[in-house]
C-alpha cells in the first residue's frame, strides 16, 4: 500500500506541475494553440484531484487495515481505536494533515476548474495560482513530510494510538471544517491575483470571489467555534478559549476574512477600496499559511502544535515567495486599482466600513503581535516571556466592544450620507431597549463600578441587545412595508423580504448570531468554581447546586480504562441530575485524560471534573465550575451558520404588486416593486 500511496502522490505532483507550467505558458504566450494548451492544463488540474484523492483513500484504508508497515499509521492509530477515529487518523498527524490539506485544495481546484465557463480567462488565471499552491504542498508530501514512509525495522503488532485529546466525536468534524476554511482562502486569493495579473476589467471577479469567500468564511467560523467547543468539552479546565498560538492562528485569517466580507461591499457598490481589498484577500491567505507555519515549525510553543520538524523552512520560503509574487503584480498593475467615487459624509455606510475594517485589522494585529512577542523578546533580549490570556483580554475586549457597536450601527447607515432624521428613526427604539437592558442588569446586581470585567460585561450585554434590537427592527419594518403592499401577515412578509434580498437579511442573521455569542462570552467574569476531596456521601456546594458523591466505579474496553465518579446534583432538596465525570487511561499511548461531565442549560453550565486522587490521602478530587451563559455561544454559532447559508441562497426574482386603491380618498397608487427600498 505504501508503494501505491507514494506513486499516486508523485503522479499528483507531476499533474499539478504540468497544470501550473502549461497554464502559465498558455497565459503568457499568446501564440496559436495557447487555448488548447490552457485546456490541457485545466484537465491536468482536474486529474490531480483524482490522484490526491486516491492517496487519501490509501492512507485511510491502511488505518482501517491496521497496516503498521506505514510509519504514519503506526504512530497515529492502534487496533482497538474506534472506527470513526481511524478515519480521523488522516488529519491527526503532520504528514496526514498535509495530505488532507492537499486533498481539500485539489477539491476546491476541481470545482473551480469545472466552473471555468463562468469566465474562461479569469478562471484560467485562478487555476494557475491554485496549481502553484498545490505544487508546493505536493512537494512537501513527496520530499519533506511523507505520509507513506515505511516503518523501519521489525513491524510492531500494534500501533502507538491516537492522541487521547483527539478521541472525541467533534475531532471528526472540527479539523475538516477548519481546514476547509484555511484552504478555501486560497480560492479568493487565486482570483485576486489572477484579476490583478490580467488587469481584469470591471467588478465581476469580486462578485465571484465574494461567494467563495462566504463559503470559506462559513467553514472557518464553524472550525474556530467547534475548536472552542472541543477545548471546553475535552481539556477540562472549564474554559473554551485560552489564546493559545494555535487558536490564534485560526482566529487571524478569520478576522481579516471578516473584514474583507465587509469591505468588498464598498468595491461592489461604490467602486472604492480596490487596493485595500486586494491586500485583504492576500493577507487572509497569507495568514492561513502563516498559521500552518506556526503550528508545524515549532517556532512558537503550543500544546496543540504538531511535532517539530524541518518543514517550517519550507513554509517560511513559501510565505516569502508568495509575498514577493503578489507585491510584484501589485506594483506592476496598481494603476488599475483606482477608486471611482468619493466619500460624501462621515456618517455613512462607507465610513462605518472603514472603521469596521480598522478594528478588525487592529484585532488581527494584536493577536499576531501577542503570538509573536515571545519570539521577538527572545531575539531582542535573549529572554522568553509568556503572553497569556490577560494580555489579550486587556487589549482586545475594548476593540471587540467597538466592533459590536459598529455591528449594530453600520447596517442601518445609508450609503453616501445619513440624515439625522434617519438616524433617529432607526436607532431610537433599539437604543432605548439596550439602555433598558443595562438598567435591568444593574438593578439585578451587576456592579460595573466594582471591577472592570463587570463593566465590560455590562457594555457587552447592552451592545448585544442593541444589535439584536436593530436586527429585529429591520426585519419588522421591512416586513410591514411588504405586508402593506401585499396584505400578507407579518411572518410571511418577513420571509418574502428575506427571499428578496438574502444577502442583506442573511447578513443580519449573522449579526444576530454574533450578538448571541457575545451574550455567551459576557458571563465569563461571573464564573465560579469549587474543588474538594470527596469520598462517598460527601457534599460540595456551588451556587444553587449541591453535589453529592454517590459512588466511584471503573470501566474498561480495549482502547482505555476509566475511573468514573457518580455525582448526584441537587437544587434545593430536589435531585435534578446525575453526572459522571471520568478519568481515562489510554492503553496504547499510555496517557491519561480527564473527561468532564457538563450539565448545560440556557442560564449556566455546571461543569464537573474528576481530577484524580490526592497522592497523599488517596481521596478522589472533584472540581466543579459554574459557568453562566456558555450555551449562548453555541446557539450563536448555529445562528451565524444559518445566516451564512441563507445569505448564499439566490434572491427571488423581483415581482410587482398592485397596492389596493384607497376607497375613501379615491387615491390610486401605482404598482410598486416588492422590496423597494432594500
Amino acid at each position, binding site marked *: 500500500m505504501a508503494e501505491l500511496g507514494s506513486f499516486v502522490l508523485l503522479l499528483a505532483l507531476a499533474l499539478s506541475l504540468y497544470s501550473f507550467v502549461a497554464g502559465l505558458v498558455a497565459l503568457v504566450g499568446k501564440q496559436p494553440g495557447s487555448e488548447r494548451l490552457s485546456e490541457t492544463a485545466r484537465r491536468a488540474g482536474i486529474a490531480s484531484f483524482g490522484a490526491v484523492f486516491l492517496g487519501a483513500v490509501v492512507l485511510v484504508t491502511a488505518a482501517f487495515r491496521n497496516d503498521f508497515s506505514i510509519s504514519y499509521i503506526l504512530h497515529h492509530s492502534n487496533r482497538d481505536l474506534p472506527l470513526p477515529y481511524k478515519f480521523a487518523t488522516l488529519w491527526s498527524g503532520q504528514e496526514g494533515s498535509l495530505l488532507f490539506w492537499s486533498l481539500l485544495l485539489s477539491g476546491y481546484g476541481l470545482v473551480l476548474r469545472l466552473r471555468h465557463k463562468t469566465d474562461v480567462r479569469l478562471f484560467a488565471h485562478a487555476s494557475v495560482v491554485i496549481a502553484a499552491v498545490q505544487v508546493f504542498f505536493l512537494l512537501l508530501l513527496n520530499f519533506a513530510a511523507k505520509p507513506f514512509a515505511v516503518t523501519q525495522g521489525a513491524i510492531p503488532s500494534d500501533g502507538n494510538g491516537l492522541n487521547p485529546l483527539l478521541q472525541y466525536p467533534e475531532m471528526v468534524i472540527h479539523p475538516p471544517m477548519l481546514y476547509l476554511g484555511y484552504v478555501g482562502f486560497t480560492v479568493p486569493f487565486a482570483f485576486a491575483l489572477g484579476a490583478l495579473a490580467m488587469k481584469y476589467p470591471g467588478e465581476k471577479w469580486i462578485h465571484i470571489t465574494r461567494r467563495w469567500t462566504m463559503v470559506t468564511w462559513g467553514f472557518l467560523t464553524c472550525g474556530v467555534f467547534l475548536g472552542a467547543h472541543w477545548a471546553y468539552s475535552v481539556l*477540562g*479546565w*472549564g*474554559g473554551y478559549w*485560552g489564546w*493559545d498560538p494555535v487558536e490564534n492562528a485560526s482566529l487571524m485569517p478569520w478576522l481579516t476574512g471578516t473584514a474583507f466580507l465587509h469591505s468588498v*461591499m464598498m468595491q*461592489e*457598490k*461604490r467602486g*472604492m477600496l480596490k487596493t485595500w481589498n486586494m491586500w485583504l484577500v492576500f493577507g487572509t491567505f497569507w495568514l492561513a499559511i502563516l498559521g500552518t507555519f506556526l503550528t508545524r515549525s515549532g517556532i512558537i*510553543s503550543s*500544546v496543540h502544535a504538531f511535532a517539530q520538524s524541518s518543514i517550517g523552512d519550507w513554509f517560511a520560503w513559501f510565505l516569502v515567495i508568495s509575498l514577493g509574487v503578489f507585491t510584484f503584480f501589485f506594483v506592476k498593475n496598481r494603476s488599475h486599482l483606482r*477608486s*471611482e*467615487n*468619493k*466619500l*460624501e459624509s*462621515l456618517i455613512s455606510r462607507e*465610513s462605518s466600513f*472603514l*472603521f469596521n475594517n*480598522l478594528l478588525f485589522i*487592529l484585532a488581527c*494585529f*494584536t493577536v499576531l*503581535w*501577542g503570538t509573536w*512577542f515571545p519570539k521577538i*523578546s527572545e531575539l*531582542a*533580549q535573549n*529572554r*522568553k*516571556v*509568556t*503572553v*497569556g*490570556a*490577560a*494580555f489579550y483580554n486587556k*487589549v482586545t475586549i475594548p*476593540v471587540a466592544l467597538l466592533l459590536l457597536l459598529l455591528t449594530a450601527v453600520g*447596517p442601518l447607515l445609508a*450609503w*453616501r450620507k445619513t440624515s439625522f432624521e434617519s438616524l433617529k428613526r432607526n436607532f431610537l427604539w433599539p437604543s432605548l431597549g439596550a439602555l433598558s437592558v443595562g438598567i435591568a442588569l444593574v438593578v439585578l446586581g451587576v456592579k460595573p463600578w466594582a471591577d472592570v470585567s463587570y463593566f465590560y460585561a455590562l457594555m457587552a450585554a447592552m451592545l448585544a441587545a442593541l444589535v439584536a434590537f436593530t436586527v429585529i427592527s429591520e426585519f419588522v419594518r421591512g416586513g410591514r412595508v411588504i405586508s402593506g403592499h401585499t396584505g400578507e401577515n407579518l411572518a410571511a412578509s418577513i420571509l418574502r423580504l428575506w427571499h428578496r*434580498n438574502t*444577502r*442583506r437579511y442573511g447578513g443580519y442573521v449573522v449579526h444576530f448570531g454574533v450578538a448571541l455569542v457575545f451574550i455567551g462570552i459576557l458571563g465569563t467574569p461571573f464564573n465560579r468554581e469549587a474543588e474538594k476531596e470527596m469520598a462517598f456521601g460527601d457534599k460540595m456546594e456551588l451556587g444553587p447546586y449541591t453535589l453529592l458523591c454517590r459512588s466511584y466505579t471503573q470501566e474498561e474496553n480495549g482502547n482505555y480504562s476509566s475511573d468514573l465518579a457518580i455525582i448526584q446534583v441537587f437544587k434545593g432538596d430536589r435531585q435534578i441530575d446525575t453526572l459522571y465525570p471520568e*478519568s481515562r487511561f489510554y492503553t496504547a499511548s499510555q496517557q*491519561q*485524560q*480527564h473527561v468532564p461531565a457538563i450539565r448545560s442549560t440556557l442560564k449556566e453550565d455546571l461543569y464537573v*471534573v474528576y*481530577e*484524580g486522587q490526592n497522592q497523599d490521602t488517596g481521596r478522589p478530587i472533584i*472540581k466543579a465550575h459554574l459557568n453562566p451563559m456558555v450555551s449562548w455561544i453555541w446557539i450563536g454559532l448555529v445562528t451565524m451558520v444559518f445566516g451564512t447559508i441563507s445569505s448564499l441562497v439566490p434572491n427571488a426574482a423581483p415581482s410587482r404588486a398592485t397596492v389596493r386603491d384607497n376607497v375613501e380618498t379615491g387615491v390610486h397608487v401605482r404598482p410598486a416593486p416588492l422590496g423597494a*427600498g*432594500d
Partner: protein
Amino acid sequence: MPFLSPYARRLHLISALLVGVLLLLGAGDDSARIDRLGHQMMCVCGCNQILLECNHVGCSYSTRMRDELTAAVTRGDSDNGVLQWFIQTYGTTVLTVPTNRGFNRIAWIMPYLALVTGIALVVFVVGVWKKRPSAIRVGIPATVRGVELDRFREQARRETEL
C-alpha cells in the same frame, strides 16, 4: 482566671475575639492573595495553563508551585517579592503577561500605537476622499434619457441594494 477582675476578664475576652477575627481576616486575605497571584503565573510544565487552573494528571510542577506560593504568602512576602522569587526560580515565562518595564513595555504599547496610527490613517483617507472631485456633474439640465438614464438607474440599484 480566678484572680482577674470581671473587667479584666472581659477585656481579655474581647482581645481574644479581636485576635481571632484578625487571624480569620488574615486567612481570608491570604487565600485571596494566593488566588490573585496564582492567576498571574503559569504552570511551567508546558501545558500553557494558568498555575491555579492547571489540571492535567501527573503534572510534576503545578502542585509544587502551588505549595511554594502558599508558603511564600503565609510567611508574609510582598506580592512583588513572591513574583520575583518565582521569576528567579522558573524564569520570566512564569508570568502570564510581560511586565510593563524595559523592552517588555513594547508589548503593551504596540496595540495602542497601532490603534492611534490606524485612526490617523482612516482620518487621512477620509480627508483625501472628501476632497476628491465629484464623479457626478452638477449644473446639467435634469433631462437624462436613453442609455445615460439606464446607467443612472443601474447605479441607483447597485448603491441602494446591499
